[in-house]
């Protein structure tokens, strides 16, 4: 059942009486006498305009937030006056270290600044010269199909957790809204890539689905962040670079570059978020390790799935190049994990063994 407020406002005599009085011009103006801390904030750099960091000061600053927020569970914005009687929205993410990154505000601004619109920005007409049944083209459309799934699940993961976050952490909530848009744009752009002209979607992959489900159904937000922002987007970024590398015309070059660009913001937040969490609460490292042990097992499934590895072999011309690509991307992922405070990933991960098996 939908939420019902405890008061029947339409039958409240005080509300009707007060409204009638105000309509006659008798204003209380009580709200005007009680204001948040006065601010005189403006753009520090006019080229950027007014950013979230410009107004993150005084009583409105995130630096004043305690590790555990107990003073506000309502929808009231940080720094506003909190009257009695505000309803709780039931937030479950009320610990700053669970979600926080000092970079969230800047990444939010950057995400908006570097946005692009697939409908017009991609030079789609350059795809006209492509043979729609060329094996390389079929391989690109198969990879595009995988990326559509990854993009939409990224939106789903951000959406799944954003509304659980306390309103006091608005910078991170804003960033997750941009992640939803970024994920949707990945799905939109690669759906259009697959279907442009005489195109078609490829086949979905159970192994890719299992990996994405493990990320989507992470028990906690830190687990979801580590497995999506760090792990999944290490591979999404790499696939973007690979898409650009194998581009034979401008549209794929554009798409690959922008995919790598947008994926890198997920990575930047993920590294800083996980590092902050482990710094504040070192015991969380083992929890994340155990989760990544499982999700990387799913990653092996994706990397070995015919719907993924075979198009890569076709594009690269040999398995050896694909193995080198996998090894490089795994190494980059482990380097990011180390930067986030998880230096033991290579020793625990099934991915290096899988790559050794592929090498023969």
């Amino acid at each position, binding site marked *: 059942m939908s939420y019902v407020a405890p008061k029947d406002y339409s039958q409240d005599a005080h509300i009707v009486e007060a409204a009638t009085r105000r309509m006659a011009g008798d204003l209380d103006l009580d709200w005007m006498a009680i204001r948040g801390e006065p601010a005189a904030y403006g753009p520090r*750099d006019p*080229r*950027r305009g007014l950013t979230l960091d410009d107004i993150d000061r005084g009583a409105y600053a995130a630096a004043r937030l305690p590790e555990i927020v107990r003073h506000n569970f309502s929808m009231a914005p940080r720094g506003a006056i909190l009257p009695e009687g505000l309803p709780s929205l039931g937030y479950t993410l009320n610990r700053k270290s669970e979600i926080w990154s000092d970079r969230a505000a800047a990444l939010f*601004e*950057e995400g908006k*600044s*570097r*946005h692009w619109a697939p409908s017009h920005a991609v030079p789609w007409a350059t795809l006209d010269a492509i043979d729609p049944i060329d094996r390389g083209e079929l391989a690109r459309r198969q990879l595009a199909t995988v990326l559509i799934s990854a993009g939409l699940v990224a939106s789903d993961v951000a959406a799944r957790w954003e509304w659980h976050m306390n309103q006091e952490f608005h910078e991170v909530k804003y960033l997750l809204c941009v992640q939803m848009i970024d994920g949707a744009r990945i799905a939109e752009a690669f759906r259009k890539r697959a279907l442009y002209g005489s195109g078609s979607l490829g086949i979905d992959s159970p192994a890719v689905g299992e990996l994405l489900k493990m990320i989507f159904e992470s028990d906690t937000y830190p687990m979801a962040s580590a497995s999506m922002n760090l792990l999944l987007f290490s591979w999404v*970024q790499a696939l*973007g*670079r*690979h898409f*650009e*590398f194998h*581009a*034979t*015309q401008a549209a794929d*070059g554009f798409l*690959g*570059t*922008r995919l*790598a*660009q947008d*994926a*890198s*913001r997920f*990575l*930047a937040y993920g*590294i*800083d978020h996980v590092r902050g969490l482990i710094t504040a609460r070192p015991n969380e490292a083992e929890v994340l390790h155990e989760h990544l042990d499982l999700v990387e097992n799913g990653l092996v499934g994706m990397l070995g799935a015919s719907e993924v590895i075979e198009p890569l072999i076709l594009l*690269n011309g040999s398995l050896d*190049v694909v193995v*080198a*690509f996998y090894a490089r991307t795994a190494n*980059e992922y482990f*380097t*990011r994990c*180390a*930067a986030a405070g998880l230096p033991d990933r290579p020793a625990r991960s099934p991915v290096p063994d899988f790559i050794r098996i592929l090498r023969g």
Partner: protein
Amino acid sequence: MATPFPSLAFFQALQQRTKEASDRFERLGYCDTTFGVRIGDRLFRVAFEVYECTAVGEGDGDEALDFVLAGSLETWIEMVRAIRENSGADAAHTLNTLTHIGDVIQVEYDDAEGYDKFFRYMASLQEFFDQARALDLELR
């Protein structure tokens, strides 16, 4: 008079292009990174802030570099020549292609976040180098 490549004057000319062609860079969005370009044994430093290149220099500086793009003189000349011949990098000579499989140009870095800035801002950095199409250059 033609600007020699490689040289500090070349990067100063590219820096000026980010002001003259500001609309192209503003369309691509914020770009905040300080990186290096190693051409043979010469290191050039390039700083971007908001939309434009704000500083260039040669040699080791005080500021930390997010990443360094390192390649042989021949590789860089080939890239710049391709940019001039195609009015922008062709598919074989984009920054991504040259730094991906095969590592024709190496991306050197100390920390993962600095490394990822190369990819976060790659479109802006490609546009930066593509501005070489507007310069009168002497490749040597």
